[in-house]
């Protein structure tokens, strides 16, 4: 029902052109109550996503069913606040975890690293499905190990991959929550992981969430990066994603 207190914006047509918050109307120039609370709700959800805990029990249980070497690890960041303040700590394994990966003697081709990043819920809700589609195919060709890391940043996959002697790592990480997509996951892949690599050595797939890139699309792109990395023996900016291979996804934001 029309609210007579609100000066509406005569821009219904405009609203169909963008997801931006336009045509909100105003009360004395200010946001109407409904709109101001909606913004607050979206921000609340995004903040909650940042502090959501990694569901290690659920994930570890699901991972054990793949019958692969599995490492339960932690970064040097002891809690979320420290994680936010000290990105350097999130890139390193804590002493116990380091010992665990150092002790490992088993050869591995690929390590799949799963970590909370800035939205554990993005990972809690999506990663098991992803792995179910990925692992049966990949394990035909490669020896795979799984690592679950609390409070990890992207570069922690380098340290894990290097110690496990892996040729290739893919890290599944919760992205910085946006107001409209608090549960978005990203994946970074690296060939020949070693400590000290920077972002130009990686390929990235981002925006994996219910309104973004679907898991099916994501698996296709991830397959492509994996195949091309092994074929060229490098990863990163030199590896261009040929969008023609994924015709229907041209409009999906993909960072190469």
């Amino acid at each position, binding site marked *: 029902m029309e609210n007579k207190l609100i000066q509406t914006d005569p*821009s219904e047509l405009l609203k169909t052109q*963008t997801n931006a918050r336009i045509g909100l109307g*105003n009360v004395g*120039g200010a946001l109407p109550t409904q709109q101001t609370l909606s913004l607050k709700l979206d921000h609340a959800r995004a903040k909650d996503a940042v502090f959501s805990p990694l569901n290690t029990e659920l994930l570890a249980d699901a991972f054990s069913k793949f019958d692969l070497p599995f490492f339960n690890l932690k970064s040097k960041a002891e809690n979320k606040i420290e994680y*936010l303040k000290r990105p350097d700590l999130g890139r390193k394994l804590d002493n116990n975890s380091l010992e665990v990966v150092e002790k490992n003697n088993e050869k591995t081709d690929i390590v799949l690293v799963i970590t909370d990043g800035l939205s554990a819920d993005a990972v809690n809700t999506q990663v098991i499905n992803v792995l179910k589609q990925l692992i049966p195919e990949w394990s035909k060709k490669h020896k795979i190990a799984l690592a679950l890391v609390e409070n990890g940043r992207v570069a922690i996959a380098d340290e894990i991959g290097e110690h496990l002697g892996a040729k290739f790592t893919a890290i599944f990480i919760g992205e*910085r929550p946006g107001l409209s997509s608090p549960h978005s996951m990203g994946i970074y892949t690296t060939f020949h992981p070693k400590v000290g690599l920077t972002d130009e050595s990686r390929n990235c797939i981002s925006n994996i969430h219910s309104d973004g890139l679907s898991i099916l699309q994501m698996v296709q792109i991830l397959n492509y990066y994996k195949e091309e990395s092994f074929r060229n023996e490098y990863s990163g900016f030199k590896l261009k994603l040929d969008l023609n291979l994924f015709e229907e996804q041209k409009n999906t934001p993909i960072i190469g």
Partner: protein
Amino acid sequence: MEFRYTVNSFTYNFKDLKTLMAKASPYRTGDALAGICAETNEERVGAQFALSEVPLSLFLTEHLIPYESDEVTRLIVDSHDQNSFSSISHLTVGDFRNWLLLDTTNQEVLGQIKMGLTPEMVAAVSKIMRNQDLIAVAQKCGVISRFRTTVGQKGRLSIRLQPNHPTDSQSGILASTIDGLMYGCGDAVIGINPATDSPEVVSNLLKMLDEVREKLGIPTQSCVLSHITTTLNIIKDAPVDLVFQSIGGTEKTNSSFGVNLNILNEGYQAAMELKRGTVGQQVMYFETGQGSSLSANAHHEVDQQTCETRAYAVARKFNPFLVNSVVGFIGPEYLFDGKQIIRAALEDHFCAKLLGLPMGMDVCYTNHADADQDDMDNLMTLLGVAGCNFFMGVPGADDIMLNYQSTSFHDAMYMRKVLKKRPAPEFEAWLLAQGIINERGERNNLNSKHLLLNMHGK
């Protein structure tokens, strides 16, 4: 040169000027991350006392980053004007603060000394100033800039309309632009952050904005905030009003942005040749932000606020139309919460204004910082009182391309109302003529046949 200060019989030593500056900085996570901040609250205030005793003239001989290895230091030293400095050359940092706050130190006096100030002097004095000092002095430094509008006059407040779209959709960007114009935004610039740096996309967006501006007769300027080299690529064929670039306060920071003083000068010269301004020819738009030097590992152990202020020397060289810091955008590892963001924003605005820049501010935060809309309300009100030249106008405060929250079209209405400020004069006249706002700055009800609402598909 070593510095020391004794508090209750304990003597703090500071091994050089940059250490003293870093330890005297109000606490923020970026300096802690860099490992250069004071270890205790007492040490911080001790450093502030010691800094207050440093003569301003010392900054001319003690360079925080060596002259030989950094072109920004060379720019700062070589462009220092001894004549403008002479009237304050006898002051210490502490007395410089006292002097700045005097009633006799008015806009005219501040204008006379600005070329005698180096960024380091200005950063130093800001570290011993309270928020109210930063506001009171900034308010005295009126800085006006001109292109098609006049921005920064007393009693005026301008807005950069920021109609970003995640896939650079022209109709999406146009829709947000029209919504913003209806709220009186866009007098600083209509400025798009493109999702890609493709010359073709940038060029098409510029053409679209120019067409809208011409069709509606809007006295304003447009900008697509692409890399300066992209802009230079298309400047001959696309309607470029302002040349944009992100800049930092050290040579290495700038090279991480893919620029140096030569490239900036190339962009400046190319834009000056176009002569597209009507009321003035200030053609550059720069963005800065605390933390960019540390993030690029290019800070030379200099604190982030001093690095930021050095970026203003780079901006000042090219007589910009607009400069703004993107203060809360960089994230909590540099500025953790609302308190740190507010402090940093007031410092950035004060330092830039004292150096003579037409400073605006992106009052903003990301979702992993401990900040919210209430913090932004506080900050925009404080900066409005301080005389900040312009703010961002983002639909509903939610930038759906950059994924952060800035100030909204509605915030512009709020600020102009409570601070009794009006849009830039040329733009205000247009808003009135179009019947978009009334004489009191309130929004009129627009007829659905209004040209503004019939731009799509035409």
